[in-house]
C-alpha cells in the first residue's frame, strides 16, 4: 500500500495530508468525524471509552470541534440540548454503561422537548465481553430505547456506516427526535480481555 501511495502522489505535505485524510475516511472513527463535520455538528462532549480513544483524540486535534469530557453522560446531554436551542449542533459520545444512566434525561428532556440528540454509544457487554456487569447492563440498552420508541441503529459494517450516520443525523434534526447509534464490536473491534 505504501508503494502505491508513493507512486500516486509525491511526498509533499499537501499530498501526505490528503492521504491521511483518505485513510481516515475509511475507518469507522474517520467516518464519524467527517460526517459530523459535513452536518455542521461542532460540539462533542463525551464520557470516554477505550474504543473511542482515537476518535476523541482526532476530535481534539481538529479546531472545527469543541470537544471535552463531562463527569456524567446526562450532563453531556444537557449541554448539547442547551446548545441546540442556542443554534449550535452537537453529539454525545459514551459507552453502554453510560447510556444506562440516561433514561430520566431522555424521558424528561430530549423526547418531550423534541431535541435532536445524537448519541454514539460504544457497545460493550457482547461479542467477547469479560465483565459480567457490562454484559448485564448492555441488555438494558435496547429495551430502554424501544420502550421510549426511540430511533436506534446498531452499526456492524464499515460499508454501511457512513450511510447510517449521515442519514440518522439528518433524520434527527429534521424530525426533532433523538437517535442512538450503537457501535458494535463487529465495527470497532470492541474491547477484549488481553488489551
Amino acid at each position, binding site marked *: 500500500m505504501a508503494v502505491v501511495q508513493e507512486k500516486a502522489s509525491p511526498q509533499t505535505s499537501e499530498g501526505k495530508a490528503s492521504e491521511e485524510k483518505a485513510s481516515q475516511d475509511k475507518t469507522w472513527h474517520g467516518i464519524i468525524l467527517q460526517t459530523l463535520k459535513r452536518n455542521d455538528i461542532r460540539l462533542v462532549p463525551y464520557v470516554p471509552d477505550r474504543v473511542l480513544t482515537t476518535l476523541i483524540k482526532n476530535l481534539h486535534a481538529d479546531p472545527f470541534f469543541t470537544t471535552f469530557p*463531562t463527569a456524567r453522560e*446526562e450532563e453531556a446531554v444537557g449541554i448539547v440540548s*442547551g446548545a*441546540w*436551542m442556542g443554534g*449550535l449542533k452537537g453529539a454525545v459520545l459514551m459507552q453502554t454503561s453510560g447510556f444506562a444512566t440516561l433514561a430520566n434525561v431522555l424521558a*424528561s428532556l430530549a423526547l418531550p*422537548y423534541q431535541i435532536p440528540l445524537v448519541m454514539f454509544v460504544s457497545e460493550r457487554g457482547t461479542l467477547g465481553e469479560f465483565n459480567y456487569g457490562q454484559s448485564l447492563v448492555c441488555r438494558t440498552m435496547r429495551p430502554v430505547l424501544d420502550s421510549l420508541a426511540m430511533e436506534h441503529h446498531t452499526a456492524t459494517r464499515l460499508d454501511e456506516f457512513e450511510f447510517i450516520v449521515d442519514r440518522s443525523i439528518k433524520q434527527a434534526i429534521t424530525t426533532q427526535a433523538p437517535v442512538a447509534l450503537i457501535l458494535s464490536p463487529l465495527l470497532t473491534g470492541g474491547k477484549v480481555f488481553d488489551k
Partner: protein
Amino acid sequence: MTTHSTTPTRNTKVMNRFDLTSRLVARLKNEEAVIGGIGNTNFDLWAAGHRPQNFYMLGSMGLAFPIALGVALAQPKRRVFALEGDGSLLMQLGSLSTIATLAPSNLTMVVMDNGVYQITGAQPTPAASVSDIVAIAIGCGLSNSAWAADEEDFERLIDQSLSATGPTLIAVRIDDKPGVGTTRRDPVQIRERFMLGLGVRQPL
C-alpha cells in the same frame, strides 16, 4: 432551620426565591437567556414574568447549569443566567468542574439554597448542615463564587458578573417557601418559544 453550623452560609440573610428572581428579571435589558431549574426554581421564574428568553425545566433534575453552559457556548455574545436549587445542584456537582474548565465568561449561575427538598415535603438535603456550596464551587475551580449577604449584595453580584472575565456563581440562602406560580407544562412550546427568543428560529 438548625443553627449548629459554623459555615459562613449562616451569616448570610435568609431571603426569598421569588423576590430574588423578580429582582434579577427586573435587571434584564438585553434579552439575556435565563434557565430555570426543576420545580420551584422555574415556577418562580415563570411567576416573575414570562419572557421569550426563559427556559423552564420540567424534569432532568440537576441539568440547569449544563443546559445553560450549552446555551452560553452556542451564543457567546449573549449573557446566560442559570437558576438552580441546592438539591438539584447536588445531583450534578461534576458539572461545576466542566464549567470551570470551559470557563465561559457569559455565564452567571445562581444557587437557591434552602437546605431542603421543598417540593417533596421539605426534607433536608444530605448537604444541609455540613456543606458550603460556595466552597464546593471554588474547590471545583469556579474562583468567582460568592454568597450574597442580602438582596442588595445579590444585585451587586449580578451586576458584577456582567463584566466578569470568567463564569460567576452566586449562592443565596432562601427560606422554605414554595414557588409562587406554576409553569405551564408544555415542553414543546417552552422549547420553541425559547428558540424564537434566542433568534434561532423564525415564527411559522
